[in-house]
């Protein structure tokens, strides 16, 4: 029969399935796992799923459910069936991501210095100057090693033929890497044997690589630099990640009010008085970083920190100003940006994108709102979006109004039939759409962590994977051969 926790009768639909080919045979790298699952008693898999969830709950990797009594907390949905990426596919992604990060960094350095790419008419000046992520105050800043985007989380998707494409570049303050590490810790306990036999590449040294990168950008002439992670505080939705990374690397977890600029340097307030801080991994937006330079109402930042930064007396990761490169209108130009700075074609293509500020493309978008995905250029987290095929007429008309009012702020893309993975739905498997967010560090060189966060749209048919919109996650196994 088709029910029960095995893959008999599993339907890949018309989508690219990460585990099975179109005749529902396991792909080469997934056979071991599929055989293992097929050999388990159905209850056994559910027991393991429950055990995994208990680990997350006991460790407090949870969020509060509002409107309930004290102590009502839930874990972020997690599915124990890993998503497997073959070595060959990964090698391609790694090359493509390195290329993209290199080009985006050159772009940032250019935009905040000579702006050759604008003068050469590759990227329109208006796009840059109207971007919410562009900060003129960052012009002529010289971050250490001329690196701006130290930490990037690039969102990748796969279409119905299995081709990878870049959906978004997140160069401001990408979150989720702690889930990559936590998911892995849990999955090692869930499928220990298959894990070892499959030859899964390790992600566990991410904290060391992160620390190495932060040391590498420290102001010159220090012995062991003092590194801090700047968090908005315990009520922030990513606070778990901030505390986790601080714990794993030994950097000090600070809030803005713990820091003060004193005699030209940034200091932390400690029980023994003020102690200098040399490198700050900031998890607050630059607009909140320094009320003297950016938003004046910010209570999260450190007054005067930008002045210290300009003098090279404190390093910031990411550098202030990186948001301009993940503006969705700028995104549309990234293939050109890669060609301009590197003289190469992009290894991983963009999702085809219509730029609404271009009249012809705007007309096309407005005529096809029911088929396209429309995104606000300066939003993230799945907000400010219209998913055409799933929208009502009223929603489409409302969006058409917004687009006409400020065409620069919108882009549109064809609806991609994202690839799917099997997930446990009650007592059987069903395919659900996924994306992939690998993390890239840029210090002495560019390193792509072999793995990433596989986000799953848990609602049947849904294409929205964001955790704020009901998405879950899976462990991501990159195979070594």
């Amino acid at each position: 029969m088709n029910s029960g926790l095995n893959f008999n009768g599993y339907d890949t639909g018309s989508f690219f399935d990460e585990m099975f080919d179109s005749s529902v045979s396991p792909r080469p790298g997934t056979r071991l796992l599929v055989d293992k699952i097929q050999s388990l008693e159905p209850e056994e898999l559910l027991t393991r799923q429950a055990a995994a969830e208990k680990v997350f709950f006991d460790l407090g990797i949870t969020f509060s459910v509002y409107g309930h009594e004290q102590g009502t907390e839930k874990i972020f949905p997690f599915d124990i069936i890993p998503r497997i990426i073959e070595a060959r596919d990964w090698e391609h992604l790694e090359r493509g991501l390195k290329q993209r990060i290199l080009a985006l960094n050159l772009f940032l350095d250019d935009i905040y210095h000579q702006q050759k790419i604008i003068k050469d008419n590759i990227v329109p000046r208006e796009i840059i100057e109207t971007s919410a992520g562009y900060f003129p105050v960052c012009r002529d800043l010289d971050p250490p090693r001329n690196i701006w985007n130290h930490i990037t989380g690039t969102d990748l998707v796969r279409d119905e033929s299995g081709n990878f494409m870049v959906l978004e570049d997140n160069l401001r303050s990408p979150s989720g890497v702690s889930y990559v590490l936590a998911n892995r810790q849990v999955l090692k306990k869930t499928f220990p044997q298959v894990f070892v036999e499959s030859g899964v590449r390790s992600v566990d040294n991410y904290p060391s690589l992160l620390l190495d990168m932060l040391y590498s950008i420290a102001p010159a002439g220090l012995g062991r630099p003092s590194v801090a992670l700047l968090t908005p505080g315990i009520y922030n939705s990513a606070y778990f990640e901030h505390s986790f990374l601080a714990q794993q690397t030994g950097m000090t977890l600070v809030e803005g009010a713990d820091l003060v600029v004193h005699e030209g340097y940034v200091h932390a307030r400690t029980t023994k008085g003020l102690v200098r801080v040399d490198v700050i991994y900031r998890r607050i937006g630059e607009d909140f970083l320094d009320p003297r330079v950016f938003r004046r109402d910010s209570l999260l930042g450190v007054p005067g920190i930008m002045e210290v930064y300009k003098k090279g007396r404190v390093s910031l990761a990411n550098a202030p100003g990186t948001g301009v490169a993940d503006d969705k209108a700028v995104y549309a130009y990234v293939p050109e940006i890669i060609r301009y700075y590197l003289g190469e074609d992009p290894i991983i293509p963009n999702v085809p994108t219509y730029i609404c500020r271009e009249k012809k493309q705007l007309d096309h978008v407005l005529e096809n709102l029911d088929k396209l995905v429309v995104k606000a250029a300066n939003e993230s987290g799945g907000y400010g979006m219209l998913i055409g095929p799933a929208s009502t007429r009223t929603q489409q008309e409302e969006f058409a109004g917004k687009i006409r009012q400020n065409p620069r702020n919108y882009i549109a893309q064809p609806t991609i039939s994202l690839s799917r993975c099997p997930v446990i739905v009650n007592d059987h498997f069903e395919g659900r759409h996924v994306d992939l967010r690998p993390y890239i560090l840029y210090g002495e060189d560019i390193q792509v962590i072999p793995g990433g966060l596989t986000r799953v749209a848990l609602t049947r048919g849904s294409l929205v994977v964001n955790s704020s919109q009901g998405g879950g996650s899976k462990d991501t196994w990159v195979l070594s051969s």
Partner: protein
Amino acid sequence: MLSRDADSIYWMSRYLERTSNIARFLDVNWHLTLDVPGQFGEQWKPLVITTGDHSDFEARYAQESKENVIHFLTADEKNPNSILSCLIAARQNAFAIRDTIPTEMWEAINVFYHYSVQACRNPRKIINDPEKFCAEVKWRNLMIGGIAWDIMAQDEAWRFFRMGRMLERADKTSRIVDVKYFMLLPSIAHVGSTLDYAQWGALLRAVGGFQAYRHAFGKISPTDVVRFLILDHDFPRSILYCLTEAQISLHEITGTRIGYFTNPAELQMGQICAGLSYHTIEEIFEQGLHEFTDDIQARINHLGKAIFDTFFSRIPAIDQSAEQ
């Protein structure tokens, strides 16, 4: 370490220790009611008086019944010093220093918190049989204490943890001693009676020191019980022991030699410890036991303020993110 982190670990530790002490004297009173049937066994009012929250209790409860007192001290979220409230506060503080404390400690506190929230959803069950809940609270605190001893580096964070724990315990032991002051005997003739001794024995059990006392003193005598609870050098819940340990931690934090002071915290701490170290039990009785415990509690309060001024600063946390 960051002032904010020191503050959090100190309070996390105090709140946890508080839950343990509430569970202890609740448990002992429960046993007293089982051992001494009738009016003079059922004495719940002293527990509320000695916690210092008597006015809050009177404002919200009609009478000092067993049910009301147990509820007030365990599951009552409106009482800031109930076990539940203390755990919420302890976990909140632990959350803020999750990166500093060992993962095992965070996990133990988190699981403890969830257990208690769950248990307190059904206060009737705790009221009918407080022993099980109190035992859980005690055991889980012992585990957290064990984690602190066995896997925490004995660095500054550990010293703030230790200092908080010891000060809280000194305060609570003084309150446990005080319980006896409020416990009624049927008449003056009952001083030295079975009931009187049962009450003194209960105090020892409350601090888990009954066996240690027997080994050291043998027969139960009021003077020796008080001497043991206040001035014993070896028992880890005696007031003098706790304050001496707190003083050691404080001076390890600052690096000042004991006997000298360089800040208000050391000054206050030195005054309390010196007073206690060089007093006989007879002098304490002369002063009056109740007056003595009152005075100790006031001084510990004062010391808490001095610690705050010396090491901590309060900072508001506001949500605002740029997360993607």
